[in-house]
């Protein structure tokens, strides 16, 4: 089946998310859709999947125009989608999830579990996608859950499979697995639209590449193109893939964790006997696949997460069990991984967000009132200093792009003297232009003498910024390496150095 998008335009108010996009996906082709976060990839796919109606343009299936008003229509036309965040019911089995919405029923309208299981097994065998049919989805590894999603689409006879950022949550081994699956599906005639912003993967697996930027197609490329060429297409100019920084001059230890253990209320161990030290003037990078204890690590350092055992010291003083206020007052800056959830109040203005944790300091107080003049002055200065692109400091912070929101968080945290900066996923959802800026500010903070604890799932980022790297795997520190470690070394540590574990 051949799929063609012709002149797709989608507007949200004054924002043009897709601007006359043309895209053709041939039968049996892996077509990569490459673009930064916010370039309009997801909007385009939601148009294709019947979730949005395009303002202009057409979708053609085998040269015949079609119109989808719901995902059901798209599915019926042979289009399957695997979302970045899986749409699975964790307490159902793989089989139940796969047939959900298209349940097989027998006599009297009862579910026919046996026939459903059989079809799941058949489909997964036919396409070489191993899925345990009776396992609860909650018990499956992320990579296997993804396979469940793919089988779900294939069972509905998808001829075109859309994979939205499929590798964001996978270990390197799982990513390799996925790529094998993609290739064998393509060989069997399924077309695949592979949405990503990772250059390496695109070059490894795609047959053709379409690059979009700011809602427009800016070029097509073949996988033989160099990463620099692709990056240049994506961002529209040459981007430094390496962060400029002098060698670190580590000082005395600022943050020391000894035997830190965190368990969730259910008893699962989230952090297991973690020891680490971050010195003044160095960046310690924490690498790992999402969900291996990074969140808990940063949260327990800033006092948001109580620890069950172990001690946390700041400049030699025990702060285990201290509240957030106290930790922040000791000169700790915190850039949380999910800025709209933890770092910003979306409905507040930029100016208000810039003083969220400073409003009770003398600089912004006028008796019991907020010193609004000081808040406004601070906002003007920070917006200028951090180049926050906005219509004005009174705009709600939720109206900003991801990159500019991140700059607001950074600007706030860096507006007081820091001994320790805790940064989690500093460039997640941040456009490439802002990424450079964010990176340079983190390095500047290090050079000023602060200790920096950097947590990121982006290996390139960790390697570019960190002076030392530790890898977290299942809440434990799996190993420490230098910033010149290869992807293979890191990948091995990230998978727990036990290759079988990757698919467990």
């Amino acid at each position, binding site marked *: 089946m051949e799929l063609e998008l012709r002149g797709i335009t989608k507007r949200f108010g004054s924002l043009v998310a897709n601007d006359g996009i043309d895209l053709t996906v041939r039968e049996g082709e892996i077509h990569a859709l490459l673009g930064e976060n916010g370039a309009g990839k997801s909007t385009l796919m939601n148009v294709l999947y019947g979730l949005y109606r395009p303002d202009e343009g057409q979708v053609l299936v085998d040269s015949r125009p079609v119109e989808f008003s719901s995902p059901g229509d798209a599915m019926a036309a042979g289009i399957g989608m695997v979302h970045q965040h899986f749409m699975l019911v964790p307490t159902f089995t793989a089989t139940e999830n796969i047939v959900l919405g298209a349940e097989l029923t027998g006599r009297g309208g009862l579910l026919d579990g046996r026939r459903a299981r059989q079809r799941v097994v058949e489909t997964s065998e036919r396409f070489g996608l191993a899925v345990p049919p009776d396992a609860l989805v909650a018990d499956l590894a992320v990579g296997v859950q993804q396979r469940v999603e793919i089988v779900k689409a294939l069972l509905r006879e998808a001829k075109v499979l859309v994979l939205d950022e499929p590798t964001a949550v996978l270990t390197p081994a799982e990513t390799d697995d996925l790529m094998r699956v993609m290739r064998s599906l393509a060989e069997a005639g399924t077309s695949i639209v592979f949405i990503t912003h990772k250059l390496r993967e695109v070059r490894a697996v795609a047959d053709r590449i379409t690059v979009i930027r700011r809602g427009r197609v800016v070029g097509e490329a073949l996988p033989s193109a160099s990463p620099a060429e692709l990056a240049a297409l994506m961002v529209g100019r040459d981007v430094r893939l390496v962060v400029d920084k002098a060698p670190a001059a580590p000082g005395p230890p600022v943050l020391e964790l000894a035997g830190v253990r965190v368990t969730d209320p259910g008893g699962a161990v989230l952090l297991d006997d973690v020891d680490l030290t971050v010195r003044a003037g160095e960046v310690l990078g924490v690498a790992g696949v999402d969900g291996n204890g990074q969140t808990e690590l940063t949260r327990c350092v800033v006092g948001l997460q109580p620890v069950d055992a172990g001690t946390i010291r700041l400049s030699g003083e025990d702060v285990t069990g201290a509240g957030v206020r106290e930790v922040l007052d000791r000169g700790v800056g915190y850039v949380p991984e999910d800025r709209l959830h933890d770092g910003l109040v979306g409905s507040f203005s930029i100016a208000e967000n810039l003083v969220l944790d400073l409003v009770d300091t003398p600089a912004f107080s006028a008796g019991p009132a*907020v010193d609004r003049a000081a*808040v406004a002055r601070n906002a003007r200065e920070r917006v200028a200093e951090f180049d926050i692109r906005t219509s004005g400091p009174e705009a*709600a912070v939720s109206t900003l792009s991801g990159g500019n929101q991140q700059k607001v968080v950074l600007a706030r945290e860096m507006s007081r003297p820091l001994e320790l900066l805790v940064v989690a996923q500093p460039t997640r959802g941040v456009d490439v232009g802002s990424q450079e800026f964010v990176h340079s500010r983190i390095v500047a903070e290090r050079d000023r003498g602060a200790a920096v604890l950097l947590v990121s799932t982006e290996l390139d980022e960790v390697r570019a910024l960190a002076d030392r790297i530790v890898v977290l795997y299942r809440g434990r520190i799996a190993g420490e390496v230098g910033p010149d470690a290869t992807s293979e070394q890191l990948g091995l540590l990230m998978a727990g150095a036990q290759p079988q574990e990757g698919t467990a």
Partner: protein
Amino acid sequence: MSTDVAPGQAPPGGAAGAPRPRRARAGDLLVTACAVVGALVVGAVLIAVGDARTRAAAAYFFSYPWDTVVEAGWAVRDAYAALLEGAFYSPALSGKAALGPISETLVNATPLVLGGLAVALAFRVGLFNIGAQGQVVLGAIAAAWIGFALDLPAGLHLLLALAGGVVGGGLWGALVGWLKARTGAHEVITTIMLNYVALNLLTFLLSTRGFQRPPYGQAISEVVDGSARLPLLLGSPLRVHAGLLLAVLAALVVHWLFRSSRLGFRMRAVGANPEAARTAGMSVGRLQITAMALSGGLAGLAGASQALGVTGSVTGSIAGSIGFDAITVALLGRNNPWGVVAAGLLFGALRAGGVQMQSATGVPVDLVGVLQALIVLFIAAPALVRAVFRLRTRAGGVGGELAGGWTR
């Protein structure tokens, strides 16, 4: 998200001011106006259906339909005219009595404004205070007890009684905040339960010596000393009293709290995103307790104002339905202090006019309750109002705020 706020509207350095989405917008006002009109239209149908002459005319509707329409029109006109006369101005009255309707409107509006502010304050902090009723009761009990049990000079006595009302309601509210912060108990559940406790506490006290008025036959408290009574603003027989000034003052304070104060800034942050507030080092639990204490204090003041300004004693029905009407007032006022004042005045006028309407035309005063309910129903379902009145669609609205209150 609407960002089309006129530049002039943002005051210089309004950084710490009310957050944009809460600011009253033309669209909100339009929906509110349409909701009131819609409610009056439905109310008109009810009046017509309830009118004996209209029903008599409807019996021969198919032979002479015009009669039904005319009779219905007269019935509706009479009822609404009486409503207006009872609420604002009656040509039949002259001299001081001409101010009577306005005075009654203000008397009715006073506790609604105070209670509405209480609910709105909690709501801005993400708390759904269904317990204003209980807090009103506690405020009335405390204020009245200080009013009749203590013997103090005028002025001081009144101040102390008012303070007692605030503290009584405030503690009742703070208890809810404490339970939530400590145990995670949802405030909707605890406030509803505490309403029962408060009401039964009042019933108990009204049968207790030292609280009950001799000769101990009736469920009514002792009489508040004159030194603790809120003075009448326009003199007898007009009932409007100094509680009205307290309500206006309270609106000013709430306005300042959320617009300018650091405490209000933190409370708004907790209401809008408790996770971000916690991450910024704020004590979410303590702020929730503070907010519930302030909210309960305002509701307690409403109870004190009733006991010291209107009744001069406490009965089992001292709180009426103030605590529940306060929720609708806050909703109608979009949780904005001045919106609450306007909504309180509207409902106060409906209450005052409703009495006159019943005595003049026989339309039961309960119609007012129906009108209130319909107004709020229309506002809680903005999509409905927009569909009925063919307004342009816009995302958001107080319906979303209402839903948000439940999920937090």
